[in-house]
């Protein structure tokens, strides 16, 4: 069975597979998450109440201030991070944070990645190749 492959920009971190958690909404580690419980805590967020730990987290744009840069590493150190973070468009801060955390991170696809991947899909993220594959 052929996988569907979407091409993005070269990313950060190692190749990883997992189950997607997807929404057409933005992402800030500081404002959207309860980082202790590993859940989306901001009520207005489309993933409110969802647990993101070890999921391939797929959202629209990065937002928020500079604090997120430390937070991805902090989450990963406690084993409470997503397996990978995939966005349509990153800002500088999220990329710097992923570099410190060595968290697999990918953006800038040839499609709106939040509409082509569905929550529950099994996907592989390959930052070196800049690809996201959806498995049948």
């Amino acid at each position, binding site marked *: 069975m052929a996988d569907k492959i979407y091409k993005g920009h*070269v990313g950060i971190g190692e190749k990883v597979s997992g189950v997607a958690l997807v929404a057409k909404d933005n992402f800030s580690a*500081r404002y959207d998450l309860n980082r202790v419980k590993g859940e989306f805590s901001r009520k207005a967020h489309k993933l409110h109440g969802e647990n993101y730990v070890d999921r391939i987290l797929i959202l629209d744009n990065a937002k928020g201030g*500079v*604090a997120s*840069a*430390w*937070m991805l590493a902090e989450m990963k*150190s406690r084993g409470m991070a997503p397996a990978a973070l995939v966005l349509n468009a990153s800002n500088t801060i999220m*990329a710097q944070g992923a*570099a410190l955390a060595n968290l697999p991170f990918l953006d800038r696809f040839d499609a709106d990645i939040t509409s082509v991947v569905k929550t529950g899909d099994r996907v592989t993220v390959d930052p070196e190749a800049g690809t996201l594959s959806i498995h049948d």
Partner: protein
Amino acid sequence: MKLTEYEHAMLAGEFGEPKRLALEQQVKVGRFFDAEDLVEVSQAHIMADTESLGESGVEFLERLAACPEQDRQVVIPTITDPRGVDQCQYKRLKQQQSWAFLELRTVAAMRAMGIMMTDTCINYQTVQAPVMGQHLAFGDTGVVIYSNSVCGARSNFEGGPAALAAGLTGRTPRYGYHLDRCRRGTHLFEIDFEPTDLAEWGALGAIIGRESGSYWTVPVIARPSAEPGSDELKHFGAAMASYGSVPMFHIVGVTPEAPDLKAAFDGAPPAARRITRKDVDDYNASFGLHNEKVDVVVFGAPQLSLIEMRQVAMLLKGRKVHDGTTLLVATNPENKAASDRMGFTETIEASGAIVLSGVCFYQMYAREMGEANNWKRLLTNSAKLCNIITGYGYEPVIAPMDRCVDAAVKGKM
């Protein structure tokens, strides 16, 4: 990415583990943003309050600080953004002892790396003003937008780890606002009224930031009738960066890369969006009023200049802050010392207000501090603070400085 021989040596660990780690991170970020090479920077500014660092971030800094002295030292002047705790005031604010202790560990680690603890988000007003064309690695978004726009210096938003890496290597990936082509105008705004105080300049920045809306947009403001000063542009830029992630603006005839409209754009300017007083009134009205009670009045975000410290002191002179209300004034250690000397601190504190040094409210574990003090109804003249603080469970309202002080005295608006 093209690296020099020196950079290759750093990456190979010849200058120790901290610099190897730093360069490795910079190469990852550089590749991500298609940087061709690294650019030498002459200063770094690090956001590393303990709320965002967490225990793991503090341990990371301590591991670096435990490396041999010549390996762990920053190689360019490296300064810091506000801290999470003012060691002289934290008990009064019901902040936890454990936070103060974590702060002390952070400060010790950063000092061991040769970092200067300036604890300020207004370094451009107090430590040293950036210069046209100067390449920098600055952290706080308000610092970056002011340095790029008002001073003509060149910096991206560098998060804490990235700014620390720049301090250790003396360079940063050359992408974004280091490049001429990213600094050209993308949106045009016209303002048909004169903002009269800092809160209105902040509101204006908020509206423009929200409408521009991304890291890669540069709003241009057609020549305004008002002549903004440093504090006006500080509030304007900080709000714009906070609402829109915008790192640079031009004001025609005011900022150095926009002597005229033509100079601000490549080619013909886009159609202008007109901003009226009604837009600002609507923005202010969206927060409502605290007619019943004000729990806490905050001046900060960004920290106050010496001029603003004087304004607050003049407004509070001979008056008493209401028993049910707390008035906080946040500045940096330099301006605190100057305010002590000028007598402003004494005047402000005689009213019952609290002067905080080296902190900036929203980085102070604002959620837990608010819960401990029963602070919910917050009043401020900072549009940036209004944007951030709702995420911490507060109900903010914005008003000019004099109305904020009146409300602090009456206990309500």
